[in-house]
């Protein structure tokens, strides 16, 4: 006997999901449609003259070598954020799973950073890394490393990766912890009895059983690295030095709100949207095959 909610009324289900649908329409479909529309127009800042230019905005974008360079920067950035974020949170989740005393304390501390707004996270980290008075910058100088994220591209990239990963660790940690706790203890005990060491147990039993969670988090982290990290870049490096941390979404913000070139900004949003849709499709098609439910 299947347990299912049955509605006798024809319109009640629609009414109940109407608020959610309204939000999706207003906050997702409408802006997306507007972006598609504006990407084929060229307007002056105040919108008093609008010109239909077809795909010229896109052509200009792909002819701009700094835009193509920012693809590479974004790819590097998201790979770093996703892999470091997932590995560190998995490690923390595994360790938190084994703790018996004070588990609540560790878990609370590890979940806290998620409540911090991205811009605030960026400012926090820049205070710590600002030479010469930031704590981390000072400590690095003591061991002989001249930290300068204003002029050194690698330092700047490291700074935004650290800030972005720090924020996302809590989210990943929560899901990994839940995933770990849903693995039946009996499987792990059986493997232990058979003589498997902790590392072997982890990689052959725990990790494959965690794969739905890992897959889900991979998708989320990639989307996060592409879109939600703009505030961190804006609060810390502003895309500098030069253009070395100008990720795609930062350029969208800059062109739209500082340069007031809405056509180009909308075209970039459309390109970003296509990339993330394509990535998600790829992930669902190919990576999901390996996920064991």
């Amino acid at each position, binding site marked *: 006997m299947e347990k299912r909610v049955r509605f006798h009324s024809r319109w009640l289900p629609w009414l109940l999901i109407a608020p959610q649908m309204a939000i999706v329409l207003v906050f997702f479909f409408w802006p997306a449609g507007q972006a598609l529309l504006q990407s084929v127009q060229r307007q002056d800042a*105040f919108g008093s*003259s609008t*010109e239909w230019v077809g795909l010229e905005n896109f052509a200009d974008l792909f002819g701009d070598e700094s835009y193509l360079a920012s693809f590479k920067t974004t790819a590097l950035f998201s790979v770093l954020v996703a892999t470091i974020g997932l590995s560190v949170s998995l490690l923390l989740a595994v360790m938190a799973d084994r703790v018996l005393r004070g588990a609540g304390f560790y878990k609370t501390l590890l979940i806290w950073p998620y409540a911090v707004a991205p811009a605030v996270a960026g400012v926090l980290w820049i205070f710590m890394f600002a030479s010469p008075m930031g704590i981390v910058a000072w400590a690095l100088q003591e061991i002989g490393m001249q930290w300068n994220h*204003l002029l050194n591209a690698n330092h700047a990239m490291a700074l935004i990766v650290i800030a972005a990963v720090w924020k996302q660790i809590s989210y990943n940690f929560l899901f990994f912890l839940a995933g770990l706790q849903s693995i039946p203890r009996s499987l792990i005990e059986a493997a232990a009895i058979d003589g498997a060491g902790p590392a072997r147990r982890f990689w052959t039993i725990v990790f494959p059983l965690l794969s739905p969670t890992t897959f889900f988090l991979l998708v989320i982290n990639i989307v996060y690295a592409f879109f939600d990290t703009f505030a961190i870049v804006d609060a810390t490096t502003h895309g500098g030095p*030069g253009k070395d941390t100008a990720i795609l979404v930062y350029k969208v913000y800059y062109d739209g709100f*500082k*340069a007031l070139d809405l056509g180009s900004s909308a075209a970039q949003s459309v390109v970003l949207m296509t990339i993330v849709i394509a990535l998600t499709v790829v992930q669902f098609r190919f990576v999901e095959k390996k996920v064991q439910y």
Partner: protein
Amino acid sequence: MKTKLSVVALTALLSVSVQAQTEIQWWHSMGGALGEWVNDQAKDFNNSQKDYKVVPVFKGSYDESMTAAIAAFRAGNAPHILQVFEVGTATMMASKNAIVPVGEVMKKAGVTFDPGAYVPAVAGYYTAPNGQMLSFPFNSSTTVFHYNKDAFKAAGIDPNTPPKTWPEVALAAAKLKASGHKCPFTTSWVSWTQLESFSAWHNTEFATKGNGMRGIDARLTFNSPLHVRHIENLANMAKSGLFVYKGRGNAADATFVSGECAMTTGSSALYGNIKRNAKFESGISTLPYYPDVPGSPQNTVIGGASLWVMAGKKDNEYKGVAQFFAHLSKPEEAAKSHQRTGYLPLTKASYQMTEKSGFYKQNPGTDVSVEQMIRKTTDKSRGIRLGNFVQIRTINDEELEQVWAGKKSAKEALDAAVKRGNEQLERFQKANKG
């Protein structure tokens, strides 16, 4: 009971009929001490008459409030007065349907308005080629040289003879470094101080067509040998630790006020902040120059912002705007503002008033900004007005960062910046023809 009710009803009616004040929305970007100054100005005007009430609203930084105003305008909800930074001038000028020129506002409202009363180097920037004043020059600063007198004393330099030329700056920086100072020289607004104002100060063009004042088909020229030489000098100073780059925009200002950096080239409007917060004796001097360049020092270019009047409002509201501008232009008001903030005096009368009152003698260095600007300008030094200027400045920031990091030579970076900047100018020209 009945009499009580009728008394209440009568007072209610009376209070309603008194609310006839026209509100004028003023969106600005002045925070901190400058924000208090803005609020005081509005309060003074509101107290001086009963018909209009100016309501100042802080909307964030210059580009944040510009974006907010654009969105509001598109929604039919724009403010009456908008403070726009000087690099947004070309964008505002090109948006003819969105703004009403100040000259027109004053004429229609019947308020006496003499464009000749304003300091020429300032008003000329906000005037169209046909002579009509487009926006009201509210807060104009210029590039000056701030230096830490206490640090000078500690390094054995005479605090009352600041370096006037770039070679002297390098020497002073070397002495400061030798005395243990970690940050002898820095700069804020790198493009404004080291390229734009630098060009005008040396009577050299930053861009063709009189730096864009004569037409939107101007193209950049700041990769000339003089500019390359200057950036190379700065790059060498950076390599020897005499010049320490402290970030884009005005990020470096805080390092001067805190005492971390001893010398900086930046806005004259930093004066208010220094007066309030610095724990050392500070001095202001003119922007350094190269003595071997003919025609230098000429004059510097302005920074800061002006007030634009948005279109689509009612006539009596524009009357209020005109009266507010007339109030701000009164010599006493303009003189008070100038003395309080470090911004340039609005009118020649306010400058003379300040001079007569002995203010400059009591506060040495506050007349440096005026001295640099109140000169006869040449065609190459009148000011810089280019489209997509925000992007051009960012491009200059990016390319120069590569120079300070040692990744590009000065010539490579300036050539790249000119090439990328010209692309921006072409786009602006295409988007705004006619």
